[in-house]
């Protein structure tokens, strides 16, 4: 008798538990945004964190112009944005690095890249007693981050900085520990200027660093550099500008030492625009041009070439048009570098590829 009730209990319990699990496993469709009301069109995107401030400004302003359209953007990181776009859970993605051929191959429909704004990465240092802005050659930066240049008074550093008295101290390298578009741009640049970096380390949102300490986020790297004497790190230009961090000049491909600012970044994009491929997947690090800052990059919106929902297609193409023309005016307030004119012209033509 007892055993029977026990088995009945077990049976009922397991059935109920299975029901609960079944219910919890199923609601994948309801995880997406709440069902849109008929008079309000909702479009969702996900991806890069670096352009999030300007994107949210754009989507907000665009919503003010078209009150029936809402664009939701989750800044979950470039990798997450690409993953969600490939799995079809968002209408568009965003990334700080162009998608690889392998990733494009996984896409069910063709994915188009649209550059939106520009960013740059700058080296920031903390050497007690040194307040001058340092000049860095590409060889010096690659040497430091490869662990080959270990002292601040190395000839590779004293050469371009004749007026600065650099100490005979060990260099402490600080890099990002979290996967990040900033790291992608930095390592992309080092891969271009150093063959050894390219073959030993390579470029990615995270890499196998030969030397250094890892810190999370721009704020983590900044904090670590400030806390550690004789250290060097790299941060986004916008972060450095907004927090008034001192940062060094970098020698560009024309041999000039350039201090990063918005104009120098746009100049880098203009230099690269002449050889812009039709799919816009281009790295503009080490771009030609006397005033170009060499560690610059586009950030991209990733849009499917085929959008079945006609209403969504219309909104997305209209938004892209608005973003490249009127929308660019919001860039400077938020310290993003604008797209150069030739790139905008080329992109406006490419919008027609969205079917």
């Amino acid at each position: 008798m007892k055993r029977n009730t026990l088995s009945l209990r077990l049976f009922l319990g397991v059935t109920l538990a299975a029901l609960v699990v079944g219910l919890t496993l199923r609601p994948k469709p309801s995880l997406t945004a709440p069902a849109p009301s008929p008079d309000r069109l909702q479009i969702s995107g996900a991806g890069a964190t670096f352009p999030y401030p300007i994107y949210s400004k754009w989507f907000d302003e665009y919503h003010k112009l078209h009150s029936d359209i809402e664009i939701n953007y989750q800044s979950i990181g470039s990798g997450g944005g690409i993953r969600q776009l490939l799995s079809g859970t968002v209408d568009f993605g965003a990334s700080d690095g162009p998608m690889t051929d392998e990733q494009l191959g996984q896409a069910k429909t063709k994915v188009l890249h649209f550059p939106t704004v520009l960013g740059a990465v700058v080296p920031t240092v903390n050497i007690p007693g040194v307040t001058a802005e340092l000049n860095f050659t590409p060889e010096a930066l690659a040497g430091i981050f490869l662990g080959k240049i270990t002292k601040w008074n190395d000839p590779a550093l004293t050469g371009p900085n004749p007026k600065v008295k650099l100490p005979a101290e060990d260099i402490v390298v600080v890099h990002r520990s979290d996967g990040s578009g900033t790291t992608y741009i930095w390592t992309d640049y080092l891969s271009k200027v150093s063959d050894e970096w390219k073959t030993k380390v390579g470029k990615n949102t995270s890499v196998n660093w030969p030397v250094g300490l890892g810190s999370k986020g721009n704020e983590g790297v900044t904090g670590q550099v400030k806390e550690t004497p004789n250290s060097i790190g790299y941060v986004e230009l916008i972060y450095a500008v907004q927090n008034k961090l001192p940062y060094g000049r970098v020698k560009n491909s024309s041999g000039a030492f350039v201090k990063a600012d918005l104009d120098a970044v746009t100049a880098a994009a203009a230099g690269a625009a002449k050889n812009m491929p039709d799919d816009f997947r281009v790295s503009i690090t080490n771009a030609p041009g006397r005033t170009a800052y060499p560690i610059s990059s586009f950030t991209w919106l990733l849009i499917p070439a085929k959008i079945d929902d006609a209403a969504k297609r219309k909104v997305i193409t209209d938004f892209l048009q608005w973003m490249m023309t009127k929308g660019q005016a919001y860039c400077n307030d938020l310290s993003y570098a604008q797209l150069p004119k030739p790139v905008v012209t080329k992109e406006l033509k490419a919008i027609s590829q969205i079917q």
Partner: protein
Amino acid sequence: MSLPTRPAPAGRVRSFINRLRTGDEVAHLITLLFATSIFLVTALLVFELYDNSALPRHKFGWAFFVTQTWDPVFENFGALPFIYGTVVTSALALLIAVPLGVGAAIFLAELAPRPISDALTFIIELLAAVPTVIFGLIGMFVLVPFMRVYVEPFLKATLGFLPLFKGPLYGIGFLTAGVLLGIIVIPFIVSVSREVLLAVPVDQREAALALGATKWEATWKVVVPFARTGIFGSIFLSMARALGETMAVTMVIGNVPKIATSLFAPGYSIAAIIANEFSEATGDLYVQSLVELGLVLFLLTILLNGLARLMIVATAKRGTSQE
């Protein structure tokens, strides 16, 4: 075939309904459901971790556990530096937190006047509720410079002949992460251990005192052994927290996947690398290797918990615990 020998189903159902009316069966069902759901959630977690790490499991096999490289560019992944960092920082944390925490709990439960004890316990429980990211920030801006300027030079000067205390002093690294984790888990040990000590029956103390024991002897030789299982429970809880702690550790450990004997060196923990790299990871092998690290952390927790439980059983005969 065996159907005819079974009792009539009607009787069973009636008795079941009777029991349902009295409420017993309902309580049984509901609590059974809750208990089963815990089991199912755990099983689901393990299944998902296992299922979503198929690529690296096939590609690297057991070598994943002993490989020291973590290279997202050339897609070569190994877990050893992260396992090492997780174990070393957690061990350091317990080394610091257990004596301090149990000592504080003994004071609060046995020696301090009750109002002071209650007030201090309230503060300790507040401490336990502080998000660990706050501890991480304090660690970054207060503990790290303190370690670099005072503690690490002192250790290097006095114990520098040991391989544990060699190398450059960055302030961040295994030692700082261990100390910070220790600070984070102390409130759990104090809070739980104090409750357990207070639950020891008064006659145990009185009996010891009546036999001529001093107050300290009664506490140390009777009350603490009696509460031993509960105190160990608090230590397990702390160990699990230390193994899985993410934000605070990643802010002070240095995030370098290398194995170093020196406690001053920077390292990495499993939870920290998952939090750091998951959002930007692209490529199936990379993402799935991070998932496999999650599986490794789960196995590590089971293994260490099992070892700790074995230790209790092995030492049970010595104590007077009611195990």
